[in-house]
């Protein structure tokens, strides 16, 4: 649903609810009681639900993740002009949806993956506003990056399964699939969000 519709819905619901409170004597009649039920129960519930789904959708957007200043550098790493940087390569070549770039790679593709992502988001807020945000260079994942996030898209892909780098050691692929060897380990796809070296990097400028 477009945001403008959600906003209009909220405005209309609020106005009708406040109107019923202002003209409370209307609720003495039968029609007034029906109006009160619509204004004070049905419409608010519907407006809150549409607002909630809009908020949940926004919470997966790149704009949302990068809205905190401390994440600026991480956003810039998506534009590094060097294909050895995994996030930049994925972002610039549309291998992930740009509008949901962070969420696509940093959510777990499991039954409660979305819920866990929201819980982590709350923890981010706690760290940001209560404990004090660390320097961008000091920000680390709470847990090692699981291969399942990469395998969600790459598993079964010809380039992944038959690529020479992935088959130079006999059991490499099986260890990767079993999450015993990280995709982002040293010697593999080790360049990710290296915010400490941003000042030395060149950046891709998207053609308008």
């Amino acid at each position, binding site marked *: 649903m477009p*945001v403008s519709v*959600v*906003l209009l819905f*909220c*405005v209309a*619901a*609020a*106005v009708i*609810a*406040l*109107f*019923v*409170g*202002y003209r*409370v*004597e209307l*609720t003495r009649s039968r029609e007034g009681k029906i109006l*009160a039920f619509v*204004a*004070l*129960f049905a419409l*608010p*519930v519907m*407006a*809150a639900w549409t*607002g*909630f789904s*809009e*908020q949940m959708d*926004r*919470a997966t*957007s790149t*704009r*949302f993740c990068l*809205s*905190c200043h401390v994440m600026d550098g991480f956003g810039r790493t998506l534009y590094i002009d060097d294909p050895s940087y995994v996030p930049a390569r994925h972002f610039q070549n549309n291998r992930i949806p740009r509008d949901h770039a962070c969420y696509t790679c940093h959510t777990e593709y499991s039954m409660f993956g979305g819920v866990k992502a929201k819980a982590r*988001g709350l923890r*981010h*807020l706690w760290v*940001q506003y209560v404990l004090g945000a660390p320097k961008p260079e000091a920000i680390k994942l709470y847990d090692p990056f699981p291969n399942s996030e990469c395998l969600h898209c790459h598993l079964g892909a010809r380039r992944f399964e038959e690529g020479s780098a992935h088959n130079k050691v006999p059991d490499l692929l099986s260890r990767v699939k079993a999450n015993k060897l990280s995709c982002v380990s040293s010697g593999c796809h080790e360049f990710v969000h290296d915010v400490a070296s941003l000042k030395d990097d060149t950046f891709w400028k998207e053609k308008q």
Partner: protein
Amino acid sequence: METVERRIKWASFLIGAGLLVQLASLLVVHPLAFMGFLMIGCPLMLAGIVMYLLSLIHEK
């Protein structure tokens, strides 16, 4: 003013306030707006709805 009507008035005020907070939170894309929606807007609205439903019970 009867108690029931007073409750409905309070319910409408709480629901209106909750919806306005929700509306304001939808104008900004930021984690704090998301928290404002969940922690302020929704509880205000929920309190209003509960008050309205209680007024119906008391009316009977």
